[in-house]
């Protein structure tokens, strides 16, 4: 039963606070890193938007859209190799952090968390999707992902005689809120515009503006509003199983108390109700590990890397985080009062 000291220390720790700082650092790197000559890679599994001047890296989605803007024939040639290599680079990054890229690194994700902080500061309540809407809306990100692959292909190739106009190159970027919002952090407002070149560009850029506005409003009322629709999240999930970073659940230990579901920013019900699956990373999960922090059953939820346990749910950790003190400290603090009270009786 005795745990290693270091393990106990980690399990008792407040990962959310740690995450908060990591997010700030990451945000800084991914928005301003370029100014400091930081170069990371252009195939990152997050919205590291190249439209941001200071961006030290690139979002894999823009790569995908560019690379697929090609004909079937050339895809079978060396260009195909290029597509595979960049997928390989994407996976290489992804294998290490799994969806924790979303929880810890993605600047757009971080931005949503900050908007949530603002809402809390103002004392407004949040909303949640009810079960039905959750199920219905869930598929949008996959639809976006499929479109994001098919549309560029449709520019150079024809699907049943339909040709996609050239104005639809990198279609997702055109509607992605990151393109409009993230450059603002470097003082660049140039993305706030409507491109009047042709009808396609007018429609796409206006749509982009609308989505950006929706992003701001949406994430104010609902935590991680955009992530729920994010095609990157969909793409990541396809590969989630091969990652070294894992979150697992021991259903036998679960009381289905729902603590984990309550704190989950994206509202994943299975985290509490699924007592069968071992791998409990669902498609909307961002591995923020808030659920592990909120789980009061020893070793019920676990984060591990390549089989090594990193952070486990624990009773002791739960009570420490949620009550802000250890039991001994608490008893010391109430005991004198109580003794007086009991004596005066």
């Amino acid at each position, binding site marked *: *039963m005795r745990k290693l000291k270091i393990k106990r220390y980690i399990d008792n720790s407040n990962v959310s606070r740690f995450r908060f700082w990591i997010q700030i650092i990451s945000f800084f790197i991914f928005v301003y890193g370029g100014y400091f000559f930081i170069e990371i890679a252009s195939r990152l599994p997050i919205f590291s938007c190249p439209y941001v001047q200071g961006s030290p890296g690139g979002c894999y989605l823009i790569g995908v859209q560019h690379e697929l803007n090609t004909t079937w024939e050339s895809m079978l040639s060396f260009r195909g190799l290029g597509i595979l290599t960049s997928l390989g680079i994407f996976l290489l990054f992804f294998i290490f952090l799994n969806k924790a890229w979303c929880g810890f690194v993605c600047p757009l994700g971080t931005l949503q968390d900050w908007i949530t902080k603002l809402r*809390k500061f103002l*004392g407004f*309540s*949040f909303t949640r999707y*009810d*079960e039905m809407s959750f199920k219905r809306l869930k598929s949008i990100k996959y639809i976006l992902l499929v479109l994001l692959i098919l549309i560029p292909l449709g520019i150079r190739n024809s699907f049943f005689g339909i040709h996609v106009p050239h104005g639809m190159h990198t279609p997702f970027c055109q509607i992605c809120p990151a393109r409009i919002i993230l450059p603002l952090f470097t003082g660049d407002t140039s993305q706030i515009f409507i491109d009047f070149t042709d009808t396609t560009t007018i429609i796409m850029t206006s749509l982009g503006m609308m989505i950006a506005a929706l992003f701001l409003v949406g994430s104010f009322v609902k935590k991680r509003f955009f992530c729920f629709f994010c095609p990157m999240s969909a793409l990541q999930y396809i590969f989630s199983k091969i990652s070294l970073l894992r979150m697992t659940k021991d259903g*036998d*230990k679960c*009381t*289905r*108390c*729902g*603590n*984990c579901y*309550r*704190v989950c920013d994206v509202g994943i019900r299975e985290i*509490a*109700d699924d*007592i069968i699956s071992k791998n409990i990373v669902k498609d909307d999960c961002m591995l923020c590990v*808030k659920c592990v922090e*909120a789980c*009061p059953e020893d070793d019920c939820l676990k984060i591990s890397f390549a089989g090594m346990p990193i952070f486990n749910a624990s*009773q002791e950790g*739960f*009570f420490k985080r*949620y*009550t*802000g003190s250890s*039991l001994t400290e*608490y*008893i010391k603090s*109430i*005991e004198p009062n*109580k003794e007086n009270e*009991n004596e005066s009786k």
Partner: protein
Amino acid sequence: MKVNKDRYERMKKTGSIHYAMEIKKNLAEITDDFPDNPQSMEYFYKRFEEYTIGNLHEGKKVIASMCVHVPLELIYATGGTPVRICAGAYATDQIGAEFLPAKTCPMVKSTLGAVYLDILPGNIKPELIVNPTTCDQKKKMGEIADEIDKPFFTLEVPPTKDSEEARQYWNRVVKKFVKKLEQTTGTKLTRRRLKKAIKTVAKAQAVYRRFDQIRRSAPVIYGKDAILVTNSYFFDDIENWTIQVEKLNQELEERIKNKQTVGKANSPRILLTGSPSIFPNMKLPLLIEKLGGIVVNEEFCSTSRMIWDTVAVDEWFLYDMVPAVADRYLKPSTCPNFTPNTDRERKLLRDIKDFQVDGVIYQTFTGCQLYDMESRRIGKILEDNGTQTLYIESDYNPDDFGQLTTRLEAFLDSLKNKK
């Protein structure tokens, strides 16, 4: 039932005398018939000595409750002091029998009797008596209570807990309950008060979980004492309770170090489940332990089910705290009132493993349909798990003592032989 004043006074007088005698006798059995009780248990024994004579929580607004589904945090946060009044006395059971059919659950009858005669733990005078609709008997008891003119409040517990609909329904019920509490105590629920209440209860839970952990690791305390500890959570001041359980924990850890265990090496480790043993009805645990078994865990609504589960809040504002508290009193509950109730069997299997249980004793009170009906399914699951189970139907009447002894003896012997 309107009785004339004289008759009521007579009933109250004899009822109280029987009640006091019963408590004294049963407490003596718990304390005197066993050697070497932990010193820190003195505090808890004393609580029960004062059961009939004290004036508990004087000057405070007491909110009485009858079930584990009553959110304590909300009572504390609206300036009330919760006391659970589910009763275990045969004396008041007989009084309750005047109102309810003879085959009604003794716990319900006994509680009703106690409410009727105003002989509640520590002579509390509740401002409100919260009656959750968990079983039919309680529901109907609630109706009678109106007749006897007591301040009852019906807390509508849904019949299922898995569906989103049930959860929403319950959330609204809890909100209504908050309103009722605010009216009763005259104190508004505030963010600060609720946060403090959640934390105070969480500390009690933390200390209880340590106690539980100790019981898993070594048999250093008898179940009859452990049941008293959890039973006193019904009515004790929660901070005092926390301090005292911590003291007990420390003493028990010393005992583990000194290898000062109770029972013998081959004493069968028993898990109790089913209808709850509530003081002074300690018939079953006492008998088991006198016959050489050790009760290592109780899956009762008067014990672990009441304290174990925690409240987690994401945003410390009323809009998230109140639903969080509501969820805690619904989602993890293993009360047989819910259907499906698979969580109960999973909990039992988990406990059997964690507490290295040799045999399960399943207690059903005569008239308790829910536990009775669930016993077959649970029995089958335990059998598949290779756990021997003894099924016992009993009530508060001490008459079945002889018959119980024979059956328990046989069961414990067979467990010993297997060890």
